[in-house]
């Protein structure tokens, strides 16, 4: 057992006071460093999932041939790791194989007008999942070309004007736009934590039966 005299001796010993000073400084530094928010990689990801919410089962028949009034169900997922709430817009474009897709080098979107758009807020660190249900309701055959004239996307009837030879190699392009509070505009590209320009998009190919 330590008696009070020994305890006092220990307390006033040079070794104890030195250790105390070092350890208090160390603990305070750790407490401060732990309270400072750490810099992390900033990114937004966009994924298109099939009807089972996996990267499969994109087409109702298992083949990429979509018939008139075939109901196709996909899911659009946006993950926000930008460190703050983001206001995003996903613009959907219907393109054929020859039309320009978004440019990954210059980070410019496809020049084709979008047929559908949805806007949403995504909390930091959160994943947004939006059901994307579509069907083709009007197709025009001109010579050997098939022209998609009308589609229903999420219950909304939209006009389309996309044509392809034999109805082959259409693609649905999803472009992610991020709201820039400074310009008050939705922008296709932005800077990440390393000040590198980024843009996010993806596409799924299909044919019209």
């Amino acid at each position, binding site marked *: 057992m330590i008696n009070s005299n020994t305890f006092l001796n220990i307390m006033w*010993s040079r*070794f104890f006071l030195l*250790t105390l000073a070092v350890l208090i400084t160390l603990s305070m530094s750790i407490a*401060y460093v732990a309270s400072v928010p750490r810099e992390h990689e900033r990114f937004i990801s966009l994924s298109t999932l099939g009807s089972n919410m996996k990267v499969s089962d994109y087409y109702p028949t298992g083949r990429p041939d979509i018939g008139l009034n075939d109901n196709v169900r996909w899911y659009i997922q946006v993950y926000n790791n930008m460190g*703050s*709430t983001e206001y995003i817009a996903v613009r959907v474009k219907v393109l054929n194989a020859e039309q320009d897709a978004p440019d990954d080098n210059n980070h410019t979107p496809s020049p084709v007008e979008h047929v559908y758009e949805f806007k949403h*807020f995504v909390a930091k660190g*959160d994943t947004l999942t939006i059901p994307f249900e579509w069907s083709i309701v009007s197709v025009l055959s001109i010579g050997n070309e098939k022209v998609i004239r009308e589609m229903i996307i999420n219950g909304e009837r939209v006009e389309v004007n996309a044509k392809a030879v034999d109805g082959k190699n259409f693609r649905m392009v999803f472009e992610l736009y991020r709201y820039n509070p400074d310009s*008050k505009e939705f922008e296709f590209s932005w800077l990440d934590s390393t000040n590198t320009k980024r843009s996010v998009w993806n596409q799924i190919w299909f044919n019209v039966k």
Partner: protein
Amino acid sequence: MVKRLIAITTDLIVIVVISLGLLSYNAYAVLEDKVHDALIAIRDADSVGADTKYLVDRLNNILNLIKEVDDGSLKSCLSKDECITKAKSEIDALINESRILKETTTNKNLNTLTMNMLVYAPIAGFISSLVITLLYTNLKDYLKRRIIEMEVRRVEEDD
């Protein structure tokens, strides 16, 4: 005379319709600005580490309300004006809550930091120092005792 009266009435109707259109457009433009303000307020709360998920969910509901005004579906209210007024008041409430959340989180963070720096760090430092000093003193005493209690023996050297 009648023709002139009809022309004036038509002009008046056109003016009223255009004015109403402009009024509703302005109201919508105000809403977009308010949405922007709400985003900034939520981001401010984000910056101090607040959990803003429920505010973002509410803002998405307001966005749906604005969409109803835009496409004229009006499921949540009876008229455009009612929708706009409802959206406006909800955004104002949300901005206010974001500010309160930011203040609360800032105070909470400051309290946590103060407690960690001024209470837990010194206590942890004191306990650790005491344990280290006790171990050191005991070890030093033990080694001292061992040296003091040592017997000097003559080692018989082998020839």
